[in-house]
């Protein structure tokens, strides 16, 4: 495959917080660390965010390689097209998840060459020791992607787990079944530990696991408290920055570094609030990013919203924690059991609320809660064409929100997470302009 001319990198997005501006170098450092681990022969695990495996990986001193993140990096660098095209040349469909497609293109190319593809973004993605699939959130690439990659790396074992949680139904109480889920999850996590012990040279250090679980609990609380500060008017941090701060939340969970990052963010937001320093000086509209992954190559659209007087004090995307002290977790000594309870309780957190509002569900309740807590004027969602598992639900949530709550202005953006050919800046911004007009019209009524 010939090397193509790389597109010019875009101007960096303006961040509102110091913390968010530190994230780029953190991602770069993590990718470097993967390459160093490879050189030193330390085990590397291809992993998905929010699988529930973080603390186990950390406690076993295995280096996680976040493949979704690397595809996102390629997107941010506007350098994903050549990997998408490589995957297409391998006969993968362009309508697959473009994170997976980008990863498949990258990995197949790296395996073909026996070295990194030419000039890979931020040094490239190291060849893994194991791959940890996870199928619990109805996202097929989270298990099929690694199975497909295995065609190019048949020697790399794949573990496909998936932590279940009680589905929401309005006519039953999840507490009736939660024990079964917890037992299942504990068994599954034990299997994961056994798999990792078998395929890497690492043994589980159970004391270290307990420490990692404790630090991640405290990180969950710290994130919740820091993000709660965004309720302030003017809002000190927007969703654009949260698309950066998702990095320590999702890629570093179970580490002191993640806790310290959010403690620093908390302190920074406190100071901004005391100084009445908002994302923008003249805040006119407060918006909720109601779901959908962002277009990583177009994060400057958040700045465009800002230029129109709009801020995003809250987002559903990548807010993957709740305050642990509100989850009503039983005290248990086995850290795996604690992880299982936290998982089940996290996913059941708004079940009771939803049951009180006919036609609602926990996702709709979350939208309502954020709209009220963060004084939201409108909801923006993103239909990324290649993220098939999320979008049917998104549209339903928006419709139900308007049905069971109120007819709040909404905007659905259409593009992709990685595939820039789906994006038209002029049209996107024309839609944003029109949305701002409708917000103004509704506000003035």
């Amino acid at each position, binding site marked *: 495959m010939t090397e193509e001319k790389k597109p010019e990198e875009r101007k960096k997005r303006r961040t509102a917080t110091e913390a968010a501006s530190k994230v780029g170098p953190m991602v770069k450092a993590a990718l470097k660390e993967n390459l160093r681990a490879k050189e030193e022969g330390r085990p590397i695990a291809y992993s998905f965010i929010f699988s529930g495996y973080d603390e186990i990986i950390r406690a076993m001193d295995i280096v996680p390689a976040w493949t979704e993140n690397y595809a996102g990096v390629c997107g941010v660098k506007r350098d994903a097209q050549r990997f998408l095209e490589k995957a297409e040349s391998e006969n993968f469909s362009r309508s697959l998840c473009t994170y997976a497609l980008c990863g498949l293109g990258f990995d197949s190319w790296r395996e073909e060459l026996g070295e990194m593809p030419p000039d890979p973004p931020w040094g490239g993605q190291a060849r893994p020791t194991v791959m940890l699939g996870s199928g619990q959130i109805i996202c097929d690439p989270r298990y099929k992607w690694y199975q497909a990659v295995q065609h190019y790396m048949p020697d790399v074992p794949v573990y496909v787990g998936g932590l279940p949680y009680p589905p929401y139904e309005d006519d039953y109480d999840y507490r009736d079944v939660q024990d079964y889920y917890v037992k299942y999850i504990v068994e599954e996590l034990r299997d994961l530990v056994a798999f990792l012990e078998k395929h890497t040279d690492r043994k589980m250090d159970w004391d270290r696991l307990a420490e990692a679980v404790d630090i991640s609990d405290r990180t969950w609380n710290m994130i919740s408290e820091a993000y709660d500060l965004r309720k302030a008017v003017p809002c000190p941090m927007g969703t654009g920055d949260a698309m950066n701060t998702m990095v320590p939340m999702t890629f570093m969970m179970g580490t002191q570094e993640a806790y310290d990052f959010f403690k620093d963010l908390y302190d920074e937001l406190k100071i901004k609030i005391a100084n009445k320093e908002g994302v923008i000086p003249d805040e006119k509209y407060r918006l909720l990013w109601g779901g959908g992954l962002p277009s990583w190559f177009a994060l400057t659209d958040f700045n465009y919203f800002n230029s129109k007087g709009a801020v995003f004090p809250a987002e559903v995307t990548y807010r993957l924690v709740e305050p642990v002290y509100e989850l009503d977790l039983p005290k248990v000594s086995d850290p795996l059991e604690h992880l299982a309870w936290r998982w089940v309780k996290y996913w059941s957190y708004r079940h009771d609320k939803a049951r009180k509002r006919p036609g609602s569900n926990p996702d709709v309740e979350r939208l309502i809660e954020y709209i009220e807590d963060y004084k939201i004027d409108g909801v923006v969602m993103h239909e990324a064409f290649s993220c098939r598992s999320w979008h049917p639900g998104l549209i339903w949530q928006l419709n139900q929100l308007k049905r069971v709550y109120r*007819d709040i*202005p*909404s905007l*659905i953006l*259409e593009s992709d997470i990685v595939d820039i050919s789906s994006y*038209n800046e*002029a*049209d996107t911004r*024309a*839609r944003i*302009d*029109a*949305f701002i*007009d*409708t917000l103004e*019209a*509704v506000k*003035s*009524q």
Partner: protein
Amino acid sequence: MKSQYFAGVDIGSTMTKVVIMDQATITSVIGPTGPEHRKLANRVMEEALAKANLSFDEITYVVATGYGRINVPFADKQITEISCHARGVGHLLPAARTVIDIGGQDSKGIKLKDGRAVDFVMNDKCAAGTGRFLEVTAEELGVSLEDMGRLSLEAKNRVEISNTCTVFAAQEVVARLSEGVALPDILAGLHEAIATRIYGMVRRLKIEREVALTGGGAKNIGLVKAMEAKLGFPALLPPEPLLTGAIGAALLGKDIVREAAEKGETLKVSERRLTEASIFT
């Protein structure tokens, strides 16, 4: 008291429209946008001023709208077409609660409340579901755009045409012609295809009666009938469907001037000089 005049300039992908109003529309001009004319909104404006027997200095406020609104250097303000269409339809057809605008490059649905847009949907990604769909297929069929709608009403046995892609639909049209399918039957299929696409999009808004059809698509009787069949009731049509955006722009200009006067504010207006858009040079 000296009369005040307001101008609305709507630069669409296909047509440029200018309206000059005082209490009502006193003149309007519709000209092609086209590659050469794209930068020449000033000429359409000059024509409108000549028709109205006014000098540009006599215009109190100019609002530009449409996808080319930034190409109007002499405008005092740019306002989105969603707001301008809403204002225009609210003025012309006060009973309307939903607007379906079928333009050359995009189509949109707008929900109205008190004459203002409170929600909208747009198709700007794909030519299927816009006027471009009919333009492309008209060319394949050798029929003028003006005749397409009327001819489609003569259909006896409408054929199914794909509504997912303009290019595929054009190929399908050629195949149907070679099969010997009658032209009106193909045209009826095309109008059905575009109406299905637009209706599917606008339904996201929860369509409320009355529904106004605007834009070039509303001048096509075949498309109007196909849309009405989808809606299940007759649509409202403005006297000149191409002008609702420009009329709305002029009215919004009038609103801005009135509000400023009420607040005792002085409005900043552009120099009254009709220049070409310089961004193309």
